[in-house]
């Protein structure tokens, strides 16, 4: 039986000094590369978008009920809203479906013009992004396994709670942890997941005690699995959910915003809200920047 991987990492027997000289050179080169990483990328302006003919957007791949995949098709609240926007936009929409941790950084680096996703418009994010007119409202709640001994938010002390990497719900959870610590004991551990489906599975398996997510998503979860999970209490403050562009890219935002406000006027936005979220938010402001 021949040996696996025999020439894969084989290093020739060279003198140590030659090797270390080479390593110093490589580290200098890497350091040089590191110095250039402060470079900020540009975002396409509205004119550029109109001339090239498409708007590039990013949507999360598994965030029920806002956006998720069913039988290979992107569907959910944001996706159906986007479909309505596509009809009136005038340029094509190039949509990429990807994990959440790449969406907002993708907008700041100019990879995407707009994040068409359930982005919570926190004050922290308003420093880096401009938000369109809100599509929904959200409060961060937690959910547990049905029958768990956690009856109130304060009972989370000493427990393991999960949330999505790079999400506002994670930030809310961290702030909540700080508050808990002031009163005594904080959370035992915060586990960060690539997406909520993995977090819910771990919750069902008992690896974590609770999951922090928006109340809308958790309600949707409990609706599909009432035997497995229950929604707890709020651990964050109400924020609006909106699509986002890079800060300063206001004309691009306005292009789509006009359509969203139109959809409010003719009621289609609220129909979608009722269909996917189960509630309507009729009193959302037109601008939250």
């Amino acid at each position, binding site marked *: *039986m*021949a*040996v*696996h*991987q*025999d020439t*894969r*990492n*084989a*290093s020739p027997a060279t003198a*140590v000094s030659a090797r270390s000289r080479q*390593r110093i050179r*490589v*580290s200098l080169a*890497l350091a040089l*590369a*590191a*110095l250039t*990483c*402060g470079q900020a990328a540009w975002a396409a302006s509205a004119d550029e978008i109109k001339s090239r003919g498409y708007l590039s957007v990013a949507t999360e791949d598994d965030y029920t009920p806002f956006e998720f995949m069913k039988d290979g098709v992107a569907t959910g609240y944001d996706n159906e809203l986007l479909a309505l926007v596509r009809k009136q936009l005038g340029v094509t929409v190039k949509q990429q479906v990807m994990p*959440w*941790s*790449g969406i*907002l*950084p993708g907008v*700041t*680096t100019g990879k995407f013009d707009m994040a068409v996703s359930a982005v919570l418009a926190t004050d922290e994010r308003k420093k*880096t992004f401009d938000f369109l007119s809100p599509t929904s409202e959200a409060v961060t709640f937690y959910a547990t396994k049905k029958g768990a001994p956690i009856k109130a938010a304060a009972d989370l002390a000493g427990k393991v709670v*999960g949330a999505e*990497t*790079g999400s506002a719900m994670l*930030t809310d959870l961290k702030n909540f942890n700080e508050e808990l610590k002031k009163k005594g004991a904080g959370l035992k551990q915060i*586990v*960060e*997941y*690539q997406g909520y489906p*993995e*977090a819910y*599975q*771990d919750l069902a*398996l*008992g*690896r974590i005690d609770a999951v922090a997510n928006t109340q809308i998503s958790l309600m949707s979860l409990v609706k599909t699995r009432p035997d497995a999970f229950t929604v707890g209490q709020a651990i964050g403050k109400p924020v609006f959910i909106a699509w986002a562009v890079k800060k300063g890219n206001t004309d691009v935002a306005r292009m789509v915003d006009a359509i969203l406000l139109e959809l409010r006027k003719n009621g289609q936005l609220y129909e979608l809200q009722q269909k996917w979220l189960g509630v309507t938010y009729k009193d959302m402001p037109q601008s939250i920047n």
Partner: protein
Amino acid sequence: MDHLMIIWEQRADILAGLLTTVELLLVSAAAALALGTLVAPALMSRRRWLARLATLYVDAMRCAPFLLFLYLIYFGLPLLGVRLSNWSAGAIALAVYNAAYMAELLAAAWKGLPSTMIEAAHACGFHGWGLLRRIILPPVMTSALPMIGNQLLQIVKDSAFLTIIAVGELTHQMNSIQSTYFIPFAAFLTAVVLYWAICLVIEIGGNLFARMTEEKRA
């Protein structure tokens, strides 16, 4: 430059990730080597059923992609009633998967031993466990050392997969930082540099170890 400042500010989390990667490496490498040392003789055993069982295990690990195997352990063990943390599931997957490779390369090194040496040892009265420990294992370990070093590098690279099951190793921490502060390049470049540093340490350690055993032999 301010991206690097953000990275520097988050150094506690980054260090935690680096330590987790190193811990995973040490624990699973030790377990893989130990398990491999047990399986290698089985691979070469004259008892057909034992050899066949061991070969089946090694072939299965050779054919299975690590990520899918990891998920199998991650989702499968709880069904058997074993409640494990993500870290433990990841460490077990790393150990079991790489043990097969360790066994194979140890068996190859073993076959490379001159049979005259073993015959001479038999003549001097070495048998069974003593034979294994004193005569066979030392030269096997020394000649297999570069390959074991390669395998350690592979374990480091496989450890990055554990980010998918939410283990807080280096890549996971960097992904968390880049998605919170929107500094993807600085974050992942730092991760690459740190992985490179870990591999450097492994290589230097391997060279030192090889030199030590050379001295002992001479």
